């Protein structure tokens, strides 16, 4: 290590140190402004009995309904759980498949690969329309920002107000913010990947779509798939939560059971969700190790 580098180090650490200090200070200010007290962390009488029931349920999840009698024709609890879990996956998969399309199209349009001096790979061709490119680019970036800055649950209540309850609007509620996030990450990945092959293809006369498909995409696709799979995990959680707004996913039944103080049933639904998420996470860790080329 050179003397110069050695001298630089302490200052670089103190820069991080300053940031950490600022964070801790901000947290303290937040604490004060929210008026939180440590006493409130100790549950009161009612809360304590609920906590006890909840903890009991964790070790002893329900395999049958807790209510003494259920209406005639109610399916067994485990069938209901399986159905809710299947619906959770259905909504997540449908949302992801739409958001992948959105993400690919917008990510492609929103990447600066088009603008680089060597590129001149404009999707609007070389004609007079080319002048509109900066406008198109700015429009796409703004659209991406708007899509992802509104949470999926807020999209969901917007669509509930606009269309009323139907399954497809839950799917778009997932697809819009996820599509925006995928577009942002895809465009960054496309911009970061090496450009030689794209440039060479361009030099031998390939069109913009061909350059994208054979020059850029293959270099970024490993990272893109790995990230998409990670988002799929998140989509499953989002889809479960959408149940809180009346869609037939795990959240719906979980909420009902919790409101009836049937915490053993709550845990059955929770375990179903946890198992799905863990399986997906293990799968994606295995996949990532194979796909991301380092």
């Amino acid at each position, binding site marked *: 290590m050179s003397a110069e580098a050695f001298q630089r180090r302490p200052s670089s650490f103190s820069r991080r140190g300053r940031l950490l200090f600022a964070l801790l200070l901000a947290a303290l200010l937040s604490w004060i402004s929210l008026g939180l007290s440590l006493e409130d962390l100790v549950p009161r009488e009612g809360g304590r009995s609920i906590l006890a029931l909840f903890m009991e349920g964790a070790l002893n999840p329900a395999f049958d309904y807790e209510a003494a009698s259920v209406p005639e024709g109610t399916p067994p609890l485990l069938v209901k759980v399986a159905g809710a879990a299947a619906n959770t996956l259905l909504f997540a998969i449908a949302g992801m498949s739409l958001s992948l399309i959105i993400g690919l199209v917008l990510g492609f349009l929103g990447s600066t690969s088009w603008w680089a001096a060597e590129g001149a790979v404009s999707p609007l061709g070389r004609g007079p329309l080319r002048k509109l490119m900066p406008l198109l680019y700015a429009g796409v970036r703004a659209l991406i920002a708007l899509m992802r800055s509104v949470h999926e649950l807020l999209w969901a209540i917007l669509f509930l107000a606009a269309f009323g309850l139907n399954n*497809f609007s839950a799917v778009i509620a997932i697809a819009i913010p996820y599509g925006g996030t995928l577009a942002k990450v895809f465009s960054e990945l496309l911009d970061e990947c090496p450009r030689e092959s794209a440039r060479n293809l361009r030099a031998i006369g390939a069109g913009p779509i061909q350059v994208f498909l054979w020059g850029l995409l293959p270099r970024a696709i490993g990272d893109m798939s790995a990230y998409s799979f990670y988002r799929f995990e998140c989509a499953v959680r989002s889809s479960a939560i959408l149940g809180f707004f009346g869609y037939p996913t795990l959240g719906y039944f979980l909420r009902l059971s919790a409101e009836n103080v049937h915490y053993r049933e709550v845990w059955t639904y929770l375990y179903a969700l946890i198992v799905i998420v863990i399986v997906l996470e293990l799968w994606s860790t295995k996949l990532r190790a194979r796909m991301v080329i380092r």
Partner: protein
Amino acid sequence: MTTRLETLYKARPKNRLVRASVYTLSFLTLVTWSSGTIMPGDLFTSRRLENLERFLTSDIIPYPIRESGFEWGVLWTWMSELFLDRGLDAALATLAISVLAIVLAMLLSWLFAPLAAGNLATRRPFDATPGNDTVLWRALRFTVRAVMILLRSIPEYVLAFLLLAVLGPNHAWPAVLALALHNSGILGRLGAETIENLEPAPLRTLTALGAPRRSVLVAGVFPIALGRYLLYFFYRFETCIREATVLGMLGVVSLGFYISDARGKMFYDEMLFLILLGAGIVLLSDLLSATARRYLRAAS
């Protein structure tokens, strides 16, 4: 030429897992769209289209404008009144909830990460000789990892919903704790991965010189891993703000509370305004965290 292409094609890297995953996911997608549960056509029935028309042409138009016969001049007064009356306070509360939660998550993850890292949580840290990894250490790492995976697999929203029942609704703890717990599971995992990817040589030197585990941790691991870790930290901070907005819908006073309040009263104009305000805060926090990340990159 053709034979050369064929040889190249045959020699392409193949992987069973990747292939099986592609088939499985395509199959599941096909099943999903043909199951009949999700029908795009549902959106375009005449009743829904009528609903949509009413929503767009009347519901979301700010009411003073509707009342005054589309006099757009009053828009500004309406917006600033709404903003000063509840928007600002709610926005600040949302920010406070997420800052406190993410810092708590950070502190928790500093506890988890060193205990879950495969190169640190062993008999002798950063030692690659066989026999270093004992059953007890392995059990410890497994337990910590299990706790973290449990924490991050339960969504914040569900955690907050359950904590609300236990802690009561009159304060922000349920939202803060839900966000902190969920994110500690994520940050803990990322922190453990960061430690595992550290260059072992300088740390091994420290151990060889006789430094105890805590010194290696404080003087070696922490300063070296901090830069990378903080990058992850700010990524999570962005999501934390988004989630803090939404958690209000359960009854904690953040933006979501007023959003769901407006929704309950069917004041969709107000609801839309508050949602857009939330989007503004998210964009602002993205900017903030991007700046912080740039500041950090410049430091390393």
